Every structure is written in structure tokens, then in C-alpha cells.
């Protein structure tokens, strides 16, 4: 499977890493994990019989927010799980990482799989859940196989299964793979897919906490979210919170891609300035000038260079700057990039990935894509930009799931910040930027 493309010296995820601390790319086995102090959180909980409520309380204190995109406080989510519910309940890990620009969960699973298993086991303990599934993006089959292997190791060593480590706690965990559908990252689509159906999101309410997998109470978290849990248990919620900023606890793995010298994953404290992150990624490739950044995965609004350079990387700061931290995928674009063409590729993505069940998304994503395509190809009309905005408005907030918003937000932000460039395409049937992507 090999190391990342550009192996870098020392701690490859950055000096502040806690989830990926000490990871070299080759030390993924159970033995390695144990030698890093792995599974100590689970052992501690079970040997000290820490009450589940206390685990949840610790999570709440940590201000850990979901790393899958929505940034929902994890402790709060865990407290929604009806712990006393008598029937079946499920814990689900969302490893369907498919948001363009995001590739952090893949690294967690291939290089540090046991931290996820431990995090899920702790979650299961805290919420009294006997069975879990880890839904893995279909395209990363090698990672699925590695997770299967890691699970087998964990099962053999009694970190998973019946009477874990001799306690009364049972938790069975399985891997499930997707097979090429971005929408299955949306949590309810993921549940449908796990049930053997098309990945079509469900309308909420009811929320998974009351009606989830097979109609049973279910908690879903992102891979990175679970992976942060062992550290929190070992070091306390307060310590985690202190790593970041109030309401933005801990570290976050940012997937930096695009026009940087060293694309890759960097785990930094929340609140780290963007400039610092850019520096970690080797700065701009070939010394070009920064033009724009999508700071949270392709679904989030793009921001121009000057705004980004003044922004810190945490949920609240990026929101204030007019975008969202999302899944932490930082897509960096340099001065040679055409914004129309960039938007075109993203619009095509949402058009291609819409599940097709609800009207505004099914019909609207195609409409958006076709209009941007026209503009890019010199067939734009003066009224197109307003129409694009209006169609985006008619999608946003009116769909079953947030894919509709994800398709609309980039359109509005690209036009907002780069209207001139779009106008130029329309007026002159060509691009302002001399070299294309």
C-alpha cells in the first residue's frame, strides 16, 4: 500500500498530532498500537468500571465536535441515545469519506486502525450498544481489507466481541463497504445503504437516535470523531478542550490538497492560523500566488486568498469568514486557476452524485451544471448569473438532505467572490486566466 506520496521526515502529521501521533505509515498493527499506549482508555473504563454517563460527560467537556462535516457536539449526540432502550441498538462509523478534498479517514484507518476500533468500543460502552458497523468508502478497498485485519486482531485480543477483556461488556463490530456513491456519506443515506438499499437519505425527523439502522436507535459518528475519543478518556475532556479553543476543542486533521507543494494530512490544534497550515503543506507549489481556498471540502463556500490568510482554522472562525470548516478539506487554488472551470467540475460532481429522490436537487443540480457548462464554453448569457443564483436559492434549504445545499453553496460563493471572472466568460467567451487547469 505504500507510504504517502511525499514522505516527509519526522512526525508526518505535524508536531501537535494526537490521533496520528507517532504514525509512520508502517506501524498499524495491534502490537504497535499497544506499544503506543493504545487501548489503555478502554482498559481503564472497563477495569475502573467508569459509569457510562461519566464517559459522555467527559466528551461533553471536551467540546469535541463531529468531524464529518456538520460539527455537531459529540457528547450531546451521545446523550441522545436512549441508553435504557431494551431492544437492538446500533453504533455506526461513517468512513464513507467521499467529499472532494477529504482523505483523512483513509489515513486513520490504514495507518492507525485500532484507534478507531477503540473509540467505537468506548462509544458503544457509553451508550450501551452491542453492535456496530463501520461503513467504508467503496473506493478504498485496500483500507477495507486492512480494517478487516485489524478487527480480527482486536477480536482475537478481546477488545471486541463478547465479555471484552473479561468484563460484562459485549460489543461486536463489522466493516461494511460502499461501492461508489458519495451520498452514502450522508448519515441516513448511509443507514439505508447498510440496510441493503439505495443510498437515499431519509427525511428527518425522526433522527437516527430514535429511528436509525433497521428502525432502531442508532448513533453515527465520523471516523475522526471516534478516533479522538481514546485521547479524551486518557487525558480528560478539559485537556482536549485546551488543545483548541472554547467550543472548538482538540486537534483536527486537515486534508490539504490542490496547489500546495506537499498535499497531505496535517493534524493541528483547532484555531491554528491558515497561514501556518499552508506552511506545513510546503506553501504554494512552484511559488505561485494564492488565489482562493475552499476551506472545508467541496461543498463549502470558496474564500478569496486575503480572507483566508487572515483566518484561523476552527469552526467559529471560518464561519465568521463566510464559509464552513466542514470535513476539514482545504482545497488550495493558485492564481492560474479559472474559477468558472473550477466551479464547473464541482457542479458536475453534485449533478452526478445527487441521489435523485427529491425534486430540487434532482432537477436543480443538472440545471446548475448545464448553465455553468455553457458559460465555461462561451455560451453564457447576461442573465445567467442571476439565474444561477436564483436556481441555487431554489435548491438550498428545500431538499431532504444537505446535498442540495452542498450543490448550491459553491455556486453562490464562486459568483459572489469571482463575479468578474464569470462576467468575463460571458462577455468575451473566454477566460481571464491565461493558463487553464
Amino acid at each position, binding site marked *: 500500500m505504500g507510504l504517502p506520496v511525499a514522505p516527509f521526515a519526522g512526525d508526518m502529521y505535524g508536531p501537535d498530532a494526537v490521533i496520528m501521533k507517532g504514525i509512520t505509515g508502517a506501524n498499524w498493527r495491534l502490537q504497535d498500537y499497544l506499544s503506543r499506549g493504545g487501548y489503555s482508555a478502554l482498559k481503564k473504563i472497563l477495569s475502573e468500571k467508569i459509569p457510562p454517563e461519566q464517559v459522555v460527560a467527559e466528551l461533553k467537556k471536551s467540546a469535541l465536535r463531529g468531524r464529518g462535516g456538520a460539527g455537531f457536539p459529540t457528547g450531546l449526540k451521545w446523550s441522545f441515545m436512549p441508553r435504557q432502550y431494551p431492544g437492538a441498538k446500533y453504533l455506526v462509523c461513517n468512513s464513507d469519506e467521499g467529499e472532494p478534498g477529504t482523505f483523512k479517514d483513509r489515513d486513520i484507518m490504514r495507518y492507525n486502525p485500532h484507534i478507531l476500533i477503540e473509540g467505537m468500543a468506548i462509544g458503544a460502552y457509553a451508550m450501551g450498544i452491542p453492535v456496530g458497523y463501520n461503513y467504508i468508502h467503496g473506493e478504498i478497498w485496500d483500507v477495507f481489507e486492512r480494517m478487516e485485519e485489524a478487527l480480527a486482531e482486536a477480536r482475537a485480543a478481546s477488545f471486541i466481541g463478547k465479555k471484552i477483556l473479561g468484563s460484562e461488556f459485549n460489543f461486536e463490530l463489522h466493516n461494511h463497504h460502499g461501492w461508489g456513491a458519495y451520498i452514502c456519506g450522508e448519515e441516513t443515506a448511509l443507514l439505508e445503504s447498510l440496510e441493503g438499499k439505495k443510498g437515499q437519505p431519509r*427525511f428527518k425527523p425522526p433522527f437516527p437516535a430514535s429511528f436509525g439502522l433497521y428502525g432502531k436507535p442508532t448513533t453515527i459518528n465520523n471516523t475522526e470523531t471516534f478516533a479522538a475519543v481514546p485521547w479524551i478518556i486518557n487525558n480528560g475532556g478539559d485537556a482536549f478542550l485546551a488543545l483548541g479553543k472554547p467550543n472548538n476543542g482538540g486537534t483536527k486533521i486537515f486534508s490539504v490538497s490542490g496547489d500546495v507543494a506537499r498535499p497531505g494530512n496535517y493534524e493541528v490544534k483547532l484555531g491554528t492560523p491558515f497561514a501556518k497550515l499552508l506552511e506545513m503543506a510546503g506553501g504554494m507549489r512552484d511559488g505561485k500566488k494564492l488565489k482562493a481556498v475552499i476551506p472545508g471540502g467541496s461543498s463549502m463556500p470558496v474564500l478569496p486568498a486575503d480572507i483566508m490568510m487572515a483566518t484561523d482554522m476552527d469552526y467559529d472562525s471560518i464561519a465568521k469568514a463566510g464559509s464552513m470548516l466542514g470535513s476539514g478539506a482545504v482545497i488550495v487554488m493558485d492564481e492560474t486557476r479559472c474559477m468558472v472551470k473550477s466551479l464547473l467540475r464541482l457542479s458536475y460532481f453534485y449533478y*452526478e452524485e445527487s441521489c*435523485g429522490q*427529491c425534486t430540487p436537487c*434532482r432537477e436543480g443540480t*443538472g440545471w446548475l451544471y448545464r448553465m455553468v457548462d455553457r458559460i465555461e464554453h462561451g455560451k453564457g448569457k447576461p442573465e445567467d448569473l442571476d*439565474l444561477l443564483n436564483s436556481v441555487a*436559492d431554489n435548491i438550498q434549504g428545500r431538499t431532504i438532505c444537505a446535498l442540495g445545499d452542498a450543490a448550491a453553496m459553491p455556486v453562490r460563493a464562486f459568483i459572489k467572490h469571482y463575479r468578474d471572472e464569470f462576467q468575463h466568460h460571458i462577455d468575451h467567451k473566454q477566460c481571464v486566466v491565461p493558463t487553464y487547469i
Partner: protein
Amino acid sequence: MLEIEIDGRKLEVPDGSTVMDATNQAGVYVPHFCYHKKLSIAANCRMCLVHVDKAPKPLPACATPVTNGMKVFTHSEQAINAQKGVMEFLLINHPLDCPICDQGGECQLQDLAMGYGGSGSRYEEPKRVVNNKNLGPLISTDMTRCIHCTRCVRFGEEIAGIMELGMIGRGEHAEIIAFVGKTVDSELSGNVIDLCPVGALTSKPFRYSARTWELTRHSSVSPHCGLGSNLTVQVKQNRVMRVLPRENDAINECWLSDKDRFAYEGLNASDRLVKPMIRENGAWREVDWQVALEFAANGIRKVRDQHGAVHVAALATPHQTVEELYLLQKLAHGLGSSNVDFRTRQSDFSADSNVVPWLGMAIADIAQLDRVLVVGSTLRKDHPLIAHRIRQAAKRHLQVNLIHVTDDDLAMRITNKAIVAPSQMARQLAQLVAAVAHAKGAPLPAGLAGTEAGDAAKRMADSLLSGKNCALFVGNFAQHHPSATQLHALVQTLADLLGAKFGFLGEAANSVGGYLAGAAAGGMNALQMMREPRQAYLLLGAEPELDCYDPQQAMSAMKQAEFVVALSPYQHQALDYAHVMLPVAPFTETSGTFVSTEGKAQSFRGLVQPLAETRPAWKVLRVLGNLLQVDGFDYDSSEAVLKDALSGSDPTSRLNNRLTQGVIGKIEAQGSGDIERIAEVPIYQTDAIVRRAPSLHKTRDGAVPVAGMNGEMYERLGLRDGDQVKVNGSSLLSAVLDEKLPAGCIRIPAGHPLTAKLAGMFDTVTIVRVAAQHKVAV
């Protein structure tokens, strides 16, 4: 109760209501497509977006639960913008081909586009085109019109119990299909035509034959199965063009079986009898009514005078109206004969004369049952909508137990089943009685001494004993059974042990009404009058070669008779044996009453003029009564007949399933070892109208009958692929492997011209292999 304010109006709604429920209750219309009150909520069309105070974005009324104190605005700027936005999206890829669309005039999209659509389109990109699908003989498609509401898909999964349609692909490429090469023709599939809010799924038989505004609408009642489905019949220029459900939550809800929906084609069949005919010296000729009626009266009178009234027999089908059945028996009695019957497929008539078999409960109460035993019924095909009710309950708390002779897929959850040869049904039931009696510590009823319960019986007993609200239903097959009364007695015994309700699934529209009209008159029954041939037969709607238990016997009885009068809407085989044929009206051309299996009398009126010289049967019988100088035939309306027929009393008071002496008798130990025939009547062969509905006969259920048997029998007969079998030396049928059958049996449908040469439905048969290469032309 929750308080909610809708457009400034306060109201209270029950807990768990959605905003759509609340707006419905308030009488406020919220536009919608995917929402349907009988289907699960998909919330995918987004047409019903409304403005909810304090919500950051508009919410779908269909899926949003009401919270206490909620304020909803259905016409605020936010709501209207959202609705208009959605409408625009729905129309951008829609072909807007209303002028050539069958749905035109009754299209929800068309209607709502008037209110919410823009005048011009802002969409200038190429429109999507979707290939049409061949969904078989009943449903025609124009898939480009589909708005992806998935009502049709949800219907299959949730109501019909089989997923015939699905939405494949995704995004803009999502489309509705049936699985490659499969047609859509389960017994309920036509409902998707009503459900489709646009013209994507329309009726194939109706296609391009009328615009909705040319049609007049009339209420009627289904003449087919015992449910009594309420119909809206649509007429253009005195011709029935289409049949749709008329909503009645207590009966058919908003559904119709395909039989009820498409059988109307049979009303316009080419073999309708249009003029009275008489046969003299072997030749038929058309005559005036007057001549025909006098000829008929004279013929009957002559037989009675020469051979005695006992030689006059009257046979009707249970698809005739109460009024007709009443007058028929009154006429026979007036002539001095009580040889009248309508139970043409029954073979055991030993039940007490005071039994008037009915469902034993209201149809709507099926929803509350938690345990059911079904004895001898292919529920889905015999009673599509009762099956649907049981299916719905079975999704929740109902356990279904089945004793039957075939293991066909009933498209519902069956908890326990015992699939046995026809001769073993009584034994199987006896075991169940024994198991229940044992569990209850009750003594074994007489006749059952020594009966040991097998595993299946024990499991069923456990299931039935564990319920609080249990019912036992006797199906068509058990009612036709030569030991029907024994089965009846066993079921009654079981019901008593369990404290359960029991009843009979009425085979036909008037299975109950026939009893109330006195058409089971106590003289010779339907079987006797064929077994001991009579000299005169009065046939009302009956086609003995297809309707009778033993078609062969029936035919020879007909042929030897001195005089046969056939009152029928059709020219059927009576041309070979009758002496007079009198064209009488099918249900759409006359007024009348059916009493459904739950004992509900439903009257209907004629809605088209009788075809050509056709006359309502009650009028024809009245004139015959007059001509034969029978008293009491001076009716001037069918209502007056009805009043006499039901003696002015509520029919429900006369319903009775109880045998006074529920004597079980001796249970046959084993079958004879001969090959047992399993003869069910195929869904589209049950009555004269549906037999003539061509579209239904192109469906899988309308396929040519074959001889089915399990592998063991197949081998025993040395059969190979493509072989045929000769049954009883007469009927030639293709042999097919059918592992859903018990050992020692062969499934050969009844009620079909291809099997009309065979003897009684339950008679054993002899089978000879006809190898594939020696095929004989039939």
C-alpha cells in the same frame, strides 16, 4: 392533543399528527404529489413546503410532525416561493404534452401548474427524455412525464406486498422500471395508475379512448368477489369506458383489484347476446321478446305438466343480484319446484339449512386481529383486498396461519403453514383441534379420539392460543371441498375452543345475498340437479360448463334436457343445448343489490342503457312469472323486489355461521392413493364478465392452464421438459414442475374451457404422459 395555528386559525390535532394531517383537518389545501394517505411518507417531491414560524427554512407539510404551539403559514411569501420553486423544477424536464396525454384533465401536475407554475420557462437547456417501459397488458407508460414521486414503488412494497416496480439509477437518471423483462400485473397492480399523479402510468386498455371530460361518472358495486368493492364507472356514449375505485374506507379503501378494474372490458365483449333467440328444429333464430318469452313459458309449462314440477330446476350464479335470485326462486316455487340453487361450485351441501355463511366480522375489523387461521384459500388471488388487509395487519402484530393445498407466494408474512393434499385438510385441522384441546385441557371432540398433533399443528396451536383477537377464515377451496361441512364443523369446534371468531370468505358478489334471497331453496341443490338430470333448466347467468363443480356432468344434464332456458348477457355454450336464449343485463345495465361477505347490502343502479335488446333480468323474470301465471309477480321496480326479498329486515340479523350440531364425523385416514386434483378457479375465470376481459387474460394470471406437480410426481410420471399430459383421457395440458404442491397431487385449474371436459373439481384423475415429440393437436 396538540395545538397548532394554520394561517392564523387555531385548532387541535391528535398527537403524532403531521402538518399535512392538520391542514387536511383544517380544510386547507397544501399542494402535494408524493404524499398519499395510505402510503409511507417519502417527502421527496417537496411540493408541500410550508412556512413554519421559527424554522429557518420551509418544511414539508407531509413529513413534519406537529409540535405544540406550532404556527404554520401555507400562503406566506416564503411558502409560496418555495412551492413555486419546486413547481418550476418539476416542469423543466417535463414534456408538457398535455394535449396528447391520457391524464389530461385529471392530472395533479397540470392542475397545480395552473396555480404555481410560471407562464414561461427559464430553463433553456435540453430536456430529458426517458425511454418507455413495457409493463405488460394493463399499464401503459410515458416515462418522460414521471416526476419521481415513488408512489408506484411504495405501493408495491407496502400495499401489494410485492415490489414490481423500482426506481433505478440515480440523480437525473433515476427512472421507474420493472425488473428487466418482467411485467407488472399482480392482482392489485392497476392501482398505480390511480396513484401516479401525472400521466406516466396510465391504463392500457383505456388508452386514447376518451378524454376525462367526455366521461360521465356513476357509482356502482363490483359484481365479482365477495368484498363488494365500491366502483366509479365511467361512461361515454352509453359504453363503459373505465372503472375506478370509489373510496370506501370500510370496504375497499381507495383501492381496486385488477379484476374489479379491468373486467369491464367483458361488458363490451363481442359475444354479447343482443336479441332473444329460440331454437326450433335444431336451428336458432332471433325473435321478438314477446315470442321468446312465450316460447320459454310454454316450454317450461310443458315440462312441468308432463314430468312434474320436480323436473324443473333453476340454476343461477352467485354473481346475480338479490332481486334476480329472489324472483328466480319465487318463480320456481310458483311452478311447484324448490330445485333452485346458486352455489354452483359447491359439492357438499350437508350444512344445516339455517346456515348463512358470511365473514363472521366486519371487513374493517381485520386490522385489529392478532391471530388468523386461513383454511383453503389462495388469499391473494381469491380475495385481493382482504389479503391486503391481512397483509397490513401481518406487518404489525398479526400472525397468519395457513392450512392449504398450495404454497403459492401470498406476498405476506405467514407465521405457520401446513400444505397438504386436499384429502388431508380435515386431518390437518383435526390435529390442530387436538393440539388446542390438549393445551386447554379440554376433552377431544367426538370423532377425534386418538388424533395426534404433528409439529405444524402444534406450532399453529401455539400461535393461535397466544393471541387475544383471533379469527378463523374458511376460503373458497374449503367451501368447494366435498368435505366442506366437516371442515366447517372442525373450524367451528376450533373457534369455540379458542374463543375465536370464524367465518367464510365469500367467493362471489352475492355469496351471502343468494341465501338471503332464498335461492338455496332446499330442493335439489346445484350438484343434485346435474347428477340426477332434470327435464327443464332455467339458467340465470350460469354457464354450467364453466361455473359448475362437475362441468362434464353439467353438460350432459343440459344436453339431455327437454327444455333449457338461458338468461344471459352472453352467447355461450348454451347455443349447443338451450332452447331459448334471453339477453339479460349485466350489472351496469340494471339496478340491483349485492350483499357482501360482511353482510352489507349495497344497491346500485343501471348506468348505461341495456345493449340492443337486452333487458334487466328482474323484468324478464317478472314477465315469465306473469306468463306462467304465478302469483306475486307484479313488481314495478327492483326496489320493490328487494323489499320482498329481504322481507324488509336487516340482512345482518340472518347471517349465521353456526352448525347447530357441529358434528365432525369420521376423519378420512388417508387418501385413496390415486392422484388428487387441486382445482382452484383462476382469478380471471370466476365469472362470465371477467372471463371475457381480454387484457386480464394477457397477464400471468390469465395464462393458459397447465398441469402442475412436484418433482416426485413429475418423476413418477416419467415427464421431461416440454411434455404434456392427458388427463382422464380427454384434456391435454402442458406439464410443469411446481414445487409448491403437496405430494400425490396435480394442480389443474377449474372454470376454464381447457379443463371443462374433466369431471368434478375434487375427483381423482388419471394422467398419461404425452411425450414432447408426439404432441397432439387439441
